[in-house]
């Protein structure tokens, strides 16, 4: 592959700028991704031509916006291979989607003595909703151990998931360790015991093909802004039968069938869960983001990022005093890489990298229990997307070494 650029990079105007007098190298894609010019244009286009509320008017603009809003739902349905488009609920993001599952399915189905099973590597958004539900219902929250590479350990899962387990909820890809967890196998384990399988897809759906029917998960949550779309739009996928049986969590417009003075009947799926005016532009543009990604091909994106990891991971591992978390075999590692320089706080490292134009995240990555599990307080994290290049990877490596030298010997 070309070192300096690739065929997609030019689509992202934000990448073409200097930060602290250096070329920007954006490696914080696990936090949020940048947007291609086409997507930025699509947001403009909607507000300039088609803006109207959905499902409410009979006028032409209302019909146009409704048509696009629902067409995006079908695109997303096909993107994750859901059986029905009404299994796609628009949410604010992954966090919102996971909270809806906990507050609706969880509220109905979790009782005293039941078990909810998660793992040590979960993001706070796939932890606190279950923790609070468990507290409220006097249920038991259980954590599956990680194996030596940081994968959710299937052997331990077999012990933790029992006939008392009602919900298993696991990150498909870790936002810290970059491992792809065996969610298909976990789903089958969960089903064997009569539990439902929730998959946090925030870090997987943007980077690899995800097929909900193949995984046989019951719920999948993901965010638009981590896959080229705007913030404030995300998706809750749920199997139709489950969603149908679940009560709504928010009440208001759109989600009703008929409102009487003292009772209300609910709208059909998916609108039962979409109270109030939704993020219409966000949903439509998320559909456009799906088009953009599919044009490249999710397998191609996965393979490209894999090549970048195979290039950069060995170079990182060769840096003296750099501790790399998660698997050291590039084949087992997605494009999220966490690391620390020995005796240097990740914030100091991240400031050094920022001075070199390299944007990484430093902190606990909303995964404090995992930090405790790893025995660290915080890490630095570089996360790549398909618009990153070999040159970006080289700049990262060079800047880590320069920062290390700075803190050892002063400016070089």
């Amino acid at each position, binding site marked *: 592959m070309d070192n300096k650029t690739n065929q997609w990079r030019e689509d992202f105007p934000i990448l073409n700028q200097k930060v602290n007098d250096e070329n920007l190298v954006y490696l914080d894609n696990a936090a949020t991704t940048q947007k291609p010019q086409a997507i930025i244009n699509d947001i403009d286009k909607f507000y300039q031509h088609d803006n109207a509320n959905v499902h409410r008017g009979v006028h032409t603009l209302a019909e146009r916006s409704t048509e696009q809003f629902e067409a995006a739902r079908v695109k997303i349905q096909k993107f994750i291979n859901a059986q029905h488009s009404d299994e796609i609920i628009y949410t604010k993001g992954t966090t919102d989607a996971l909270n809806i599952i906990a507050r609706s399915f969880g509220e109905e189905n979790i009782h005293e003595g039941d078990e909810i099973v998660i793992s040590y590597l979960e993001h706070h958004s796939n932890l606190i909703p279950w923790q609070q539900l468990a507290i409220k219902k006097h249920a038991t929250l259980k954590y599956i151990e990680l194996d030596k590479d940081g994968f959710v350990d299937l052997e331990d899962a077999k012990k933790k998931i029992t006939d008392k387990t009602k919900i298993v909820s696991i990150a498909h890809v870790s936002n810290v360790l970059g491992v792809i967890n065996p969610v298909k196998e976990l789903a089958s384990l969960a089903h064997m015991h009569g539990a439902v399988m929730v998959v946090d897809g925030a870090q997987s759906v943007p980077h690899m093909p995800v097929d909900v029917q193949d995984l046989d998960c019951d719920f999948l949550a993901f965010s638009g802004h981590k896959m080229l779309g705007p913030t404030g739009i995300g998706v809750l996928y749920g199997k139709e039968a489950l969603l149908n049986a679940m009560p709504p969590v928010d009440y208001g417009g759109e989600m009703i069938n008929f409102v009487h003075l003292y009772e209300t009947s609910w709208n059909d799926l998916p609108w039962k869960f979409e109270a109030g005016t939704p993020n219409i532009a966000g949903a439509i543009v998320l559909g456009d983001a799906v088009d953009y990604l599919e044009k490249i091909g999710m397998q191609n994106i996965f393979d490209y990022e894999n090549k970048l990891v195979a290039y950069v991971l060995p170079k990182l591992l060769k840096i003296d005093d750099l501790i790399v978390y998660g698997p050291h075999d590039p084949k087992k590692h997605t494009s999220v890489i966490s690391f620390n320089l020995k005796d240097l*706080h*990740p*914030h*100091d490292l991240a400031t050094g990298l*920022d*001075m070199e134009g390299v944007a990484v995240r430093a*902190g606990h990555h909303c995964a404090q229990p995992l930090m405790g599990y790893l025995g660290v*307080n915080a890490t630095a994290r570089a996360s790549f997307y398909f618009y990153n290049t070999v040159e970006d990877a080289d700049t990262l490596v060079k800047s880590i070494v320069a920062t290390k030298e*700075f803190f050892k010997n*002063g400016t070089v």
Partner: protein
Amino acid sequence: MALSKMDNLYRQVILDHSAHPHHHGKLDDSTNQIELKNPTCGDVLQLDVKVKDNKIADIAFSGYGCTISQASASMMTDAVMNKDIDTAEDMVEDFSNMILGEKTDTDILDDAATLKGVSQFPARIKCATLAWKALHKALNKK
């Protein structure tokens, strides 16, 4: 190289305080204690203060944090040692003003005045102010 800009942030005296922090540890006879967390990074600072005759008779800090937060804590303990409470509270305000880039009297802050450069690094302001916030909270703890 843009890394040279970091000299404004990580001056030698700051690196020295971070590598060899002063008043690091716990006090057996503290009168005021506080634990403060920086929720964005998970850093933790414990501060033990011994107040006697309205003065800071002794002070010590422990916990975990970055170069800036550790150096700042070390410098803060140096600066406020043996000061009376009102003076220490004034210093808290002076330091905060300095870090926010406002004009203020920094002479009284001793080494802590060398953290002035942090004002050019907005992402790191919380690291520098953590120890001073802890002092303020510890002194006002009922």
